[in-house]
């Protein structure tokens, strides 16, 4: 139960032992909690109840029973604690600018059990960021043509456009690139066109002519 809701359940008129019983179960909050602490400071029977109730719980959960708390142990401990500074005033391992922080902020300067997990999360975060950066870098390079490498670009020749020849064709004179004309001339034996206006190099022609002498 949320201790803040306990005021709906706990009556302020509870006797000390009933307060200690509810405190043992974590059922006190607010004024009732303060009342239980006040009782423990001023009423030894409150401490006796607190100890006995926990002894009963320990014994019920144990197969071998439990022993009563040792008052001498507590007395000796209290003497030592009296010489100790309050935990809030004790020196801490790290001293950041505490005075700049609001007093209500929780203290986060100790070693947490899951610090290692957070470190790994940090490493994973940096790795993800690096991967995204690398992908973005590559994508940006591809999207800007000016920056792209010109791997397959033919050398531009300012004079090539002017090197044209006029070729006579059945359809009349045709203006052609001089380099194309050279290429066609060099590969003339493979060139030519068929009756289907297809490059003859890609056709297999078969003639069916018979010698005239044989026909006679």
């Amino acid at each position, binding site marked *: *139960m949320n*201790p803040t809701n306990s005021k709906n359940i706990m009556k302020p008129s509870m006797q000390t032992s009933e307060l200690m019983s509810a405190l043992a*179960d974590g*059922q006190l909050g607010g004024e009732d909690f303060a009342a239980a602490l006040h009782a*423990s400071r001023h009423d030894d029977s409150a401490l006796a109840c607190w100890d006995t109730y926990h*002894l009963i719980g320990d014994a019920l959960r144990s197969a071998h029973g439990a022993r*009563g708390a040792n008052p001498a142990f507590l007395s000796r*401990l209290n003497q030592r604690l009296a010489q100790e500074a*309050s935990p809030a005033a004790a020196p801490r391992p790290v001293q950041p600018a505490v005075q700049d922080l609001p007093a209500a902020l929780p203290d986060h300067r100790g070693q947490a059990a899951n610090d290692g997990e957070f470190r790994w999360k940090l490493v994973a975060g940096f790795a993800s960021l690096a991967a995204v950066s690398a992908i973005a870098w590559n994508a940006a390079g591809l999207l800007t043509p000016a920056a792209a490498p010109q791997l397959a670009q033919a050398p531009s020749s300012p004079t090539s456009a002017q090197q044209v020849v006029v070729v006579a064709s059945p359809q009349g004179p045709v203006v052609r690139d001089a380099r194309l004309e050279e290429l066609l001339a060099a590969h003339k034996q493979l060139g030519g066109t068929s009756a289907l206006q297809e490059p003859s190099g890609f056709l297999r022609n078969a003639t069916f002519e018979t010698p005239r002498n044989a026909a006679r």
Partner: protein
Amino acid sequence: MSADLPLLPLEKATDSDAMLVERTVAGDQKAYELLVIKYQRRIQRLIGRMVRDVDLVEDIAQETFIRAYRALAQFRGEAQFYTWLYRIAVNTAKKALMDLKRDPTVSENAFKSGQSEESDETSPLENELTSSETPDAVLASKEIAEIINAAMEALPEELRQAITLREIEGLSYEEISEAMDCPIGTVRSRIFRAREAISQKVKPLLENQSGKRW
């Protein structure tokens, strides 16, 4: 953890632990005394499984609570208070054994045999009597257990059921309220009355064993 001794869910108890820690850090030393009374038995039993020396067990337990008190401002509340105290106790015991030139590994292994760290306070192994206890202490524990069990048997059914659901089954007041079909205030009252009835039976024995306690 054995099946017949279920783990006690500590979230409810932790509520009061956290509040007591908060009060201690705020300067209320009595709040820390309540925590010491609550956990003194468990811590001494825990250390007793590592250290086979009655006097040393008590010294290490003292040192454990002192160290915990000094470091209390650094307790974040992310773990249960007892789990945090447990680690301090184990480390303090290991250091004490090393200072005495004993092998802390052997002792801790003996302590850990069959017991996980997280099974903390309701572990039957931890609750077993340790060899560091004197025969008188063993006898006293058995006497207390017998009286408490007899007192439980003598309780009216609704009181016995309420305290069993709370202390052994570890149910919250709300869960007990649903299970017993009664208001939460009635649950609180029944648990309190059950504790009081058992307490009346066991107090004379406790006072016989150690004199006036408080």
